[in-house]
């Protein structure tokens, strides 16, 4: 299992426990020794994760084993019907969209998807969408709006793709249009930042009545690497930039950017994906229930007021 540098002592300890168990001859009682090591592992995990730096938390948000959109989709929703294509240029595998059921209720689901294997990562462009990804998302949202289906979005992208083709096909216009479409949808919209919330590419799925965020997810105007290369002309200063950018859920909730923080299992969602999915599922159901009594115009007005109030200004 892939792990981060700071997770290494814990991963090694867990390996030792496994080895001890495997090596024990039938009849050997290793339970006392295993128990002691497990207690040690629990303490180590608590210590490790209670004193993480901002940068280490950023790394957790990008953890290679972290659950992705399709993992949560499979765990929480049923009967997923994927719908492809922007009807203009292509299908963008960096954004997955379609209809599904939540406790039997038909809903639309849209999310960034990073890819787990090398091949899939390349195919999905590491979750960095092109304009056609946002245009596909807009198409599905409009469909959901017309058929009265609530929309769930899942944000997990380093950012919209910065390339020649993306610029030629209007990355800026595509994201702008996604913001506009979402702001006018007459159905409940619930967005969750499940991993990386990288700038405009993340916000392109983020104009929602409720914005939720996992504990070790990030939501940022720029990547720490990008910020560092602008401020200090050195991407290696990213940890320093991460301290400045206040990009974690705990900050986002203070600034009204996020409505609810979803706690992760100890050590992060990747250490217990099932528990993380259960927590997410419960939270999504609660917010959907909250919003279900509202009319289309009320939902649009609530969403407008929610974003209208964000900012840190004084005077005039």
């Amino acid at each position, binding site marked *: 299992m892939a792990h981060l540098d700071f997770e290494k002592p814990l991963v090694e300890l867990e390996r030792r426990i496994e080895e001890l168990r495997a090596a024990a001859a039938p009849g050997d009682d290793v339970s006392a020794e295993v128990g002691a090591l497990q207690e040690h592992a629990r303490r180590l995990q608590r210590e490790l994760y209670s004193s993480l730096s901002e940068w280490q938390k950023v790394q957790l948000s990008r953890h290679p084993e972290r659950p992705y959109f399709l993992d949560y989709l499979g765990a929480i929703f049923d009967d997923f019907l994927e719908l492809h294509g922007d009807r203009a240029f292509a299908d963008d595998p960096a954004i997955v969209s379609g209809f599904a059921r939540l406790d039997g209720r038909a809903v639309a689901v849209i999310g960034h998807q990073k890819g787990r294997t090398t091949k899939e990562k390349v195919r999905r462009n590491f979750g960095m969408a092109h304009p056609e990804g946002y245009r596909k998302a807009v198409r599905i949202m409009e469909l959901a709006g017309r058929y009265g289906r609530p929309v769930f979005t899942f944000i997990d992208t380093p950012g919209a793709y910065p390339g020649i083709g993306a610029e030629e096909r209007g990355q800026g216009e595509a994201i*702008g249009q996604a913001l506009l479409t979402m702001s006018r949808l007459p159905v409940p919209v619930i967005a969750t930042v499940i991993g990386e919330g990288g700038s405009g590419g993340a916000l392109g799925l983020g104009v929602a009545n409720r914005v939720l965020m996992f504990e070790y997810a990030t939501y940022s105007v720029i990547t720490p690497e990008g910020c560092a290369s602008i401020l200090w002309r050195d991407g290696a200063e990213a940890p320093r930039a991460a301290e400045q950018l206040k990009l974690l859920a705990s900050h986002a909730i203070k600034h009204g950017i996020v409505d609810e923080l979803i706690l992760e299992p100890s050590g992060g969602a990747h250490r217990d994906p099932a528990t993380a999915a259960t927590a997410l599922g419960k939270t999504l159901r609660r917010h959907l229930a909250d919003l279900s009594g509202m009319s289309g115009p009320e939902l649009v007005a609530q969403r407008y007021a929610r974003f209208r109030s964000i900012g840190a200004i004084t005077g005039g």
Partner: protein
Amino acid sequence: MALFAKKKPVGDASQKKSLGRGVFRRCDGCAETLKAEDFTANLEVCPNCGHHYRLSAEAWVQYLIDPGSWTEHDEGLRSLDPLHFVDSSPYPERLASSIKKSGVNDAFMAGSGTMGGRPVQLGCFVFRFMGGSMGSVVGEKITRMMERGAERKQPVILLSASGGARMQEGALSLMQMAKTVAALGLLREAGMPFISVLLNPTTGGVAASFALLGDVNIAEPRALIGFTGPRVIENTIRQTLPDGFQRSEFLMDHGMLDVIAERHDMRATIARTLDHLLD
């Protein structure tokens, strides 16, 4: 009321290449040395080669709005420091020095006025203030401008010149993209036009929010317009970008713009567009 009480520079001081005692300017476009006053009198366009230099927000207002009809709005709004952001200097100090140097409180100027007698809402980025970056104040001013347009049933004309969202306000800057575009939604609902004028440069979060969502998108010639800046793209794909990439003409070729208008034609182009949409 005087149009502008405080004296503000017309062009960007940084772009003036003064020779001798600042009477002459050498043009970046054609390398000719011409009288500085000839640039000023010509809306900061080189009289020799037509190279467009940046025109200040104040000069844009003076050019586009009928004399005596301008009322500025929300000019007292200032940014707080929600992140306690410190790079080479703390953000509040950076703001204070920008305010002092620029003579304005943030990177956007908005107001009401008439254009050929037609009441309009007009706003312009102030590029000399932190590169026209969009933080909470810029977002709030644009939002209020869109809301005024919707309430008063007046068209909104927005001139963009910005490097994008303001890093120092973090995700709060990012959220201004959603806030301003949502307000544009209100303007559309009210049936009022949004004329987006894209100046050099219009990139990042400004390009990925309202700037390319005009009912009509009008750009100046050779303006840099794009989501990701060219340097970042070059670093990502590790190849040199073709000449003219992300310039107005490139966007026109790719279907993102309605009109490219020379500066001298800008006022007439906007006025004619509004006539077509509203009269």
